[in-house]
């Protein structure tokens, strides 16, 4: 029992921090350009730096590290509000494909040469035709207009599609835009009766998403602290007023709780701990709620400037909402947790 980053893990975090801090200067240009993400940054972080394969086994072209290292990278990506398909392609598609044994595309996803996204459906979207699987579905998926692969995720079935229609949609979350997807065709690969593997992979994905939210929440707090130290009213920095200090203290109490939840869940994933599903649900809803709260407080404590388009605060607030629906809602994770700990309602 040693619940602290090893020197190697601290180095991963530090390296990622430096890279995503460099990328952050391009954030507004990427958002304004409407391309969704910066291809050069993607190739750099995912391919050259190897962050895409950090949790992928060496046999599949990865670094053979694990969920803790991936979480540490996601925290730093979140801190820079990095607009990229990190969560759908690296954080979600890779564990789904590894967990269900459909590993053909994993090396290409891990080195960033291909991008995958995900569409959640019910199992009824899958039908057997002529010995193969046909998928019919529509919905919203992040970065689907840039994706090479679309993973169709049902409760017990998973399909890989390469032929699908994707139309970019003007999205609330400017740093993780959605596209409207239509699928009606034959799957490249399908697994059936894979409920537990899919559930476990999605738990892993939620932990990585939670880590990214944590990083964004911590950045929202840090930027708010910096601003309130500079901004002078009534002859003193506004950060010296208790009404603001206590609110920022509460933000930090929330971010530290979220950090505990995220790191615990990542470590539980790495050790295949029997409490992992619980820990993932807790990390997921806690980190998303923390980001929403911190982003909201960031707007409030910046005053009028916080409500402008020019200021980044709204990008954080929008990201919080996008995160809250990407891999299931915080409320859904609490309902799942209730079931896992035996608080489910009696059958009527």
């Amino acid at each position, binding site marked *: 029992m040693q*619940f602290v980053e090893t020197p190697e893990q601290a180095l991963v975090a530090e390296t990622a921090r430096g890279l995503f801090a460099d990328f952050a200067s391009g954030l507004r240009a990427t958002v304004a350009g409407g391309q969704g993400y910066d291809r050069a940054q993607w190739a750099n972080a995912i391919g050259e730096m190897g962050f895409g394969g950090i949790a992928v086994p060496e046999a599949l072209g990865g670094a053979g590290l694990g969920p803790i290292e991936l979480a540490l990278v996601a925290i730093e990506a979140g801190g820079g509000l990095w607009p990229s398909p990190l969560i759908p392609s690296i954080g979600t598609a890779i564990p789904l494909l590894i967990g269900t044994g459909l590993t053909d595309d994993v090396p290409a996803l891990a080195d960033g040469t291909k991008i995958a996204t995900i569409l959640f459906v019910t199992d009824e979207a899958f039908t057997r035709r002529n010995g193969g699987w046909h998928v019919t579905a529509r919905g919203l998926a992040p970065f689907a207009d840039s994706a090479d692969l679309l993973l169709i995720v049902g409760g017990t079935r998973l399909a890989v599609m390469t032929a699908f229609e994707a139309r970019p949609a003007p999205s609330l979350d400017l740093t993780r835009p959605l596209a409207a997807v239509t699928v009606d065709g034959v799957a490249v690969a399908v697994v059936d009766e894979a409920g537990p593997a899919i559930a476990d992979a999605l738990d892993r994905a939620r932990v990585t998403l939670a880590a990214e939210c944590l990083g964004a929440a911590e950045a929202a707090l840090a930027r708010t602290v910096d601003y309130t130290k500079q901004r002078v009213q009534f002859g003193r920095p506004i950060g010296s007023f208790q009404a603001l200090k206590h609110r920022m203290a509460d933000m930090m109490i929330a971010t530290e709780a979220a950090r505990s939840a995220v790191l615990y869940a990542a470590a*539980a994933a790495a050790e295949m701990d029997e409490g992992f599903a619980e820990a993932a649900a807790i990390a997921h809803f806690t980190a998303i709620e923390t980001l929403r709260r911190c982003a909201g407080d960031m707007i409030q404590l910046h005053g009028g400037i916080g409500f402008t388009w020019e200021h980044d605060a709204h990008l954080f607030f929008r990201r919080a909402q996008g995160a809250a629906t990407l891999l299931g809602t915080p409320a859904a994770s609490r309902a799942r947790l209730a079931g896992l700990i035996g608080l489910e309602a009696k059958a009527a």
Partner: protein
Amino acid sequence: MRLGFTHEQECFRAEVVDWLETQLSGRFAKLRHLKSQSAFPEERRAWERTLAADGWSVIGWPKAYGGRDASLAEQVIFAEEYARAGAPGRMSHIGVELLGPTLIHFASDEQKARFLPGIASGEEYWAQGYSEPNAGSDLGSLRTRATLEGDEWVIDGQKIWTSLAQHADWIFVLARTEPGSRGSKGLSFLLVPLRQPGITLRPIRQMNGEAEFNETFFDGARTAAANVVGGVGNGWAVAMGLLMTERGVSTLGQQMGFIADYDAIVAVARANGTIDDPAIRDRLTRAYAGLRIMRATALRILSADQLPRAALTQKVHWASWYRDLGELAMDVAGQSGEVGGAGDEPLSRMADLFLSTRAATIYGGTNQIQRNIIAERALGLPREPKG
């Protein structure tokens, strides 16, 4: 980063569990699951001596002072199994958790030799004399004074909120030894025998009906000149060092108590059907998540080489969680929780939680003071003007 325990650590756990089970199902059965901090004082003293005799009283201390030099993992295991077994609250807790580590860090060799063995063996019990009626959150404004007369300190003044003083033999007192000094300057950390004519105790009845705290009056109380820790005039540094030695192993045991409270609420919710109310279920789920997060935070703090910033957030987090739990208890219990418990208990367990948890956000630094500390020390925001 690793959560799991090694085979050796699991063997240690088995040894702890076995010892606790043997003792608590035998001679000390009446102390098991005891809520009161003051009942059965003689049995509790015997319990402390038994812990000491078998080497379990101060496992985290260095071997030289009677401890085991237990690793972090072993301390975690012991704290959690101790609470899980329903072992009683430690009457020696102020000596073991607070004073002992302070003496190990600040005291002279003679002082260590005199006082550490009594704590380790369960023979001498301690109380804490910091707060005063006009020096609570603003501890630096304390006025209890100590004057050197010959080879003794003579102490006059009043302390308040001294817990367990009715069972203690000694009290450590922060007193003003430099006349006319102000704030954190001119204070000394004195070790004072509690059972003497110059000291009077008066219990304070709390809003939940119990009396865990006292007022302690010093009227010409005396202690040897040598019983000053860390040097005359250096009391503030010693007292603050004491507060920082609390790194959280004991909070793991405290959290096991929280789990028992949570379980009791869930049992009531099942019995009266409120568990089927989605709003209640969601609050119970959040309470459970809070428990898991508090444990993870404690493990983070304990595992770090240096006290991390997260440590500053721990108090408000658990205190607020616990106060919320007290409100949830009554929302689950409903009106039937508003009348007395089993036997002739004046309060149901739910009602006792409802009332007693209001203290959590006050003692050990109010939530408001804690938020100032977080804002100033962790976030680096401008300090409050000092009047």
